[in-house]
C-alpha cells in the first residue's frame, strides 16, 4: 500500500467527488458515442449474473405461486361460475372450429395449397427485468450453446410479447411490445386494415396510422402483419379497446406482468429492427 501524507490524502479525498462527477458526464458521452461497447458490457454483466438470477427465480417463483394460489382460493366461487359459462361458449366454438378445419382441409386439397413450414422455436426462462424505469424489457437465461439471435420473435402461451434485441453468450434481452421504442406492424382482423402498434410504457400500446375510412372497432382482433418482412402474418397480438380519453389501444393477449417462460420463434425473416438494435439480424444457418 502506498503511504501518502495526511494533507495530500485529504486533498485527494476532497477532489475525488468532483472528478467522479465529471467522469459521470464522461460515461454519458461514452454511452452515446459507442452504443455497441456499452451493449456488450451490459450483456457480459447479464451473462455473468444470469445463473444467480436463475437460482433466485426458484424461491421468488414459489412465493409468487403461493400468493396466486391464495388469490385463486379467495375467488374460487366466482371463477367457477365464470369458467362454466366460458366452457359452454368454448364448446360451441370448438364445434365450429372442427367444422371449419374439415372444410379448410377439403378446400386446401382442391387448391393444391402449399402450407407454410412450421416454424422452429425454443423456450427460455425469464430471469430478470431488463427495463429499468423508462423501458420495458426482460432478460432471458439461455443455455451456453443457445441458438437465440437478434430479431427473433417472443411469444408467451397466449400471444405476441416482443422481439430479441440483444444477445449474450448465456442470456438474451427481449424488448416488450409495450416499450416506448416498440413499433409493431399489425393488421386488424375484421377489416384487414393495416396499422402500427406503438408502445408507450403503459400496459396497453396504442394504435396509430390506420388508413382513412377505416376505424378500429372495439373488440377487433389484432394480429401481426407481414409488412416490412419483420414478422410473419397472423401472430395473435390482442384486441382493440377504446380508452376513455378516446385513443385506440390494444389489450394484449400476452400477460406481460407475469412472464415466466417465453417461446422464441425463428421465422428466418430479415426485416427492420428497433432503432437501438444496431446490428442486422444474422441470417438463419443453412441446414
Amino acid at each position: 500500500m502506498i503511504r501518502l501524507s495526511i494533507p495530500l490524502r485529504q486533498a485527494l479525498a476532497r477532489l475525488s467527488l468532483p472528478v467522479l462527477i465529471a467522469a459521470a458526464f464522461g460515461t454519458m458521452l461514452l454511452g452515446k458515442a459507442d452504443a455497441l461497447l456499452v451493449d456488450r458490457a451490459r450483456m457480459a454483466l447479464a451473462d455473468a449474473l444470469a445463473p444467480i438470477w436463475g437460482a433466485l427465480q426458484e424461491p421468488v417463483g414459489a412465493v409468487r405461486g403461493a400468493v396466486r394460489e391464495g388469490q385463486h382460493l379467495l375467488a374460487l366461487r366466482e371463477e367457477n361460475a365464470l369458467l362454466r359459462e366460458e366452457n359452454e361458449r368454448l364448446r360451441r366454438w370448438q364445434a365450429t372450429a372442427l367444422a371449419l378445419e374439415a372444410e379448410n382441409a377439403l378446400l386446401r386439397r382442391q387448391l393444391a395449397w402449399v402450407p407454410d413450414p412450421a416454424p422452429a422455436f425454443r423456450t427460455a426462462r425469464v430471469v430478470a427485468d431488463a427495463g429499468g424505469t423508462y423501458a420495458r424489457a426482460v432478460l432471458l437465461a439461455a443455455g451456453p450453446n443457445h441458438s437465440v439471435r437478434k430479431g427473433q420473435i417472443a411469444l408467451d402461451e397466449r400471444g405476441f410479447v416482443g422481439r430479441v434485441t440483444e444477445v449474450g453468450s448465456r442470456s438474451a434481452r427481449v424488448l416488450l411490445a409495450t416499450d416506448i421504442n416498440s413499433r409493431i406492424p399489425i393488421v386488424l382482423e375484421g377489416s384487414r386494415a393495416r396499422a402500427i402498434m406503438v408502445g408507450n410504457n403503459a400496459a396497453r400500446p396504442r394504435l396509430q396510422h390506420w388508413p382513412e375510412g377505416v376505424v378500429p372497432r372495439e373488440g377487433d382482433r389484432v394480429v401481426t402483419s407481414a409488412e416490412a418482412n419483420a414478422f410473419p402474418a397472423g401472430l395473435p397480438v390482442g384486441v382493440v379497446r377504446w380508452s376513455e380519453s378516446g385513443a385506440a389501444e390494444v389489450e394484449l393477449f400476452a400477460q406481460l406482468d407475469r412472464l415466466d417462460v417465453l417461446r422464441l420463434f425463428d421465422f428466418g425473416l430479415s426485416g427492420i429492427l428497433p432503432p437501438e438494435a444496431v446490428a442486422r439480424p444474422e441470417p438463419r444457418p443453412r441446414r
Partner: protein
Amino acid sequence: MAKGRPEPPSGFTRRLDAAVRGGFPAVSTAALLVMAAVPVGMPGLIAAAALPGVFFWTIFRPGSMPPPVVFALGLLQDLLSFAPLGVGVLTLLLVHGLALRWRDVLVKRSFLAVWLVFCGFAAGAAGLAWGLTAVLNWQSPPVMPGLLQLGLAVGLYPALAWAMSRIHRIMRRVEGAA
C-alpha cells in the same frame, strides 16, 4: 474521526474482520441491486433499491461509502437496468455529495426526520433521472414510471434503513469493544 480503523493491524483475523466491516455497505448494496433485477412486475425497482443504501451509508458510515464506490454502484445500476449510461452514476454521486455535506446535521436527527429528508432526495433523484433520460434519449419519457420509482424508494427506505441501522449498531459495538 476515522471510525473504520481504530486498532493497529495485529493479526490476520482482525484485519479480515475490519475489511469485512468496511466492505459490507458496498457489497450489500450491490447485492440488493442484483436482487432487485429479479422480475416482480415493478419497473424502477433497481433505481429505487440503490438510493436508500447510498443515502444511509453516506450519512452513518461515510468511510465505507467513498465516491468511487458510489460511482461503481451507479454504473452497476445503469448496466443492470439498461438505462442510458451515466444517469444512475450522476444521480447517486449528487445524492452522495449532498448527503455528505449535510451529514453533521442529519446524523443526530430522529429516524422520521431522516426519512423525510430522504423523501426530498428521492424526489430530486427521480426528477434528475427523468430529465437526464429525456435529454439522452431526445424524447420526453412518461412521468408515471418516475413517480412510481419515487414511491418505491420512499416506501423501501424504512425497511432497509431498519435493517441497516441494526447492522450499523452491531458494527459500532464491535468497534467499541476492540
